């Protein structure tokens, strides 16, 4: 079983639309949406959720206002500026200390040092993850709670579940939609993957971000392929990007022209290859052949 992760560096290059189109061509792949910050794959795949589970990325501190003596040691020691004198009154104090759940990183320092043991440490529910059926195969996806963190851990969890399902079903491919950027969730998406497909666009920003994400895959020793989406909006830049990719040892496996069929397909809740049989579909099929060749 192989794992292919689609990432982009820059957002908005068409990563999710391309992933969905590949899912339509890869019969029987298990799909994983690891862009948990702004998950969109479900919009075109209309999943039928079979299983819902809570996700906890760690624990969080909470001060019992009835126990707080207002000494302020917790606020002094907190490196995340998460504790302020803004909690409710108790029998002695007009105000108590309170942990801001958005800012708390669950380090437990306040819990450890509170002189009256007034601070509890509980498992935080940071979101939910789902195992679903879609017309293109099983999908594992998630919804991170509002203003929650720990997306790296959630990404790791989703990839693990997708692999388990692929093993159960004897599927030979896990297709992962990664997240933009080069930070924690992206690293969690690509670590240990067999192959990365980078989707970029021929703009100065796309080129700049591609260089950073290519450095990242090289740093982790993961083989990468490149797809240049909207290739015709700036052919010169497309040529420059192709040349730079070649120099880095990254194969350009597809140049996809700009086509509003991507947007139209999205509105129809379809992948672009399901929506149209035109040139764009032929280009994506050619891309898919190259990717399967590289995976073999």
């Amino acid at each position, binding site marked *: 079983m192989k794992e292919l992760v689609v990432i982009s560096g820059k957002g*908005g290059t068409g990563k999710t639309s391309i992933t969905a189109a590949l899912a339509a061509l890869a019969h029987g792949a298990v799909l994983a949406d690891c862009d948990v910050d*702004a998950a969109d794959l479900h919009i075109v795949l209309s999943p039928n959720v079979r299983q819902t589970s809570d996700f906890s990325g760690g624990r969080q501190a909470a001060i019992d206002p009835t126990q707080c003596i207002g000494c302020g040691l917790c606020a002094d020691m907190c490196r995340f500026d998460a504790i302020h004198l803004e909690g409710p009154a108790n029998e002695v104090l007009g105000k108590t200390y309170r942990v801001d759940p958005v800012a708390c990183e669950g380090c437990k320092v306040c819990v450890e040092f509170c002189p009256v043991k007034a601070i509890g440490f509980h498992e935080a529910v940071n979101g939910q993850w789902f195992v679903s059926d879609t017309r293109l195969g099983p999908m594992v996806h998630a919804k991170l709670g509002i203003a929650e963190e720990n997306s790296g851990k959630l990404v790791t969890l989703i990839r693990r579940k997708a692999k388990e399902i692929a093993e159960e079903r004897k599927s030979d491919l896990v297709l992962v939609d990664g997240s933009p950027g080069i930070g924690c969730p992206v690293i969690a998406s690509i670590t240990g993957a067999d192959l990365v497909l980078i989707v970029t666009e021929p703009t100065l*920003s796309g080129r700049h971000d591609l260089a950073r994400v290519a*450095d990242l895959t090289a740093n*982790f020793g993961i083989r990468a392929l490149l797809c240049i989406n909207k290739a015709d909006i*700036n052919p010169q830049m497309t040529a420059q990007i192709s040349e730079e990719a070649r120099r880095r040892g990254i194969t350009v496996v597809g140049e996809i022209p700009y086509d509003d069929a991507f947007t139209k397909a999205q509105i129809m809740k379809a992948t672009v290859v399901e929506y149209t049989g035109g040139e764009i579909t032929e280009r994506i099929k050619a891309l898919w052949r190259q990717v399967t060749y590289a995976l073999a």
Partner: protein
Amino acid sequence: MKIAIASGKGGTGKTTIATNLAVSLARAGRTVQYLDCDVEEPNGHIFLKPHIDCVEEVTVDVPEVDESKCTGCGRCGQLCQYSAIVCIQKHVLTFEQLCHSCGGCMAVCPELAITTKQRRIGIAEYGDAAGVAFGHGKLDIGAIQTPSLIRSVKHHAIDDAVVILDAPPGTSCPVIEAVKGVDFVLLVTEPTPFGLNDLELAVGMIRALGLPFSVIINRCDMGDDGVVQYCRREGIDIAMEIPNSRKIAEAYSRGRMMVDVMSEYTGQFRGLHQRIGRRIAAPMREE
């Protein structure tokens, strides 16, 4: 006044709005600062072409264990929630890249054997871009402390300037770090199902933080009317709509400013700033 430009979905035009707003105000004689908080993929410099005159290494605190003092009691490893310091058979090992710099291990060590050392996570650069004070962070490849680097860039905010913060995409910790403490947030979206889904997530986050915000719809004439319907239903102000334009897209692909190829937008961006000023002075009912 601090204004953050954010979006759930990437590639909707955050940097375009942020840089053009900054330049439009600077050309009207305002004191403006642009801070690129998208430290994983900073792109504002491509358009503003700043002259950099200060480069800083940004570091975080990580523990250093003095083995001659360590008794192997293991309390540091018991406290650490990130497996960044572990005690195995009376030996302490540190994994700096996992450290969140909470300071717990140093505080809990009964032998005072743990001190702080600096670990580099990236750089921050500051300079001037034709009258706009410029700053951005660049996260090192393989580093994961995005919020710490954003915090460092934000510390350079100039008090009496209009500070424009270009936030990273998404809805989790890096974005929250970027928008925390600002006076106003502009959420940039596009009128597509993906744009709408990610806008709803971003609105949820901004509301949880209790910040006033407006929406900007970029490429407003493509896609469908889902975003407009949603904003109407939720009573969300649409501060600006920018039609899809080949001219803007081409300028963008070459690193040129929108206000330089379509000067009529300069006035619109100044109007946007005035609109934000009015909203801060007289909040809408829900704020």
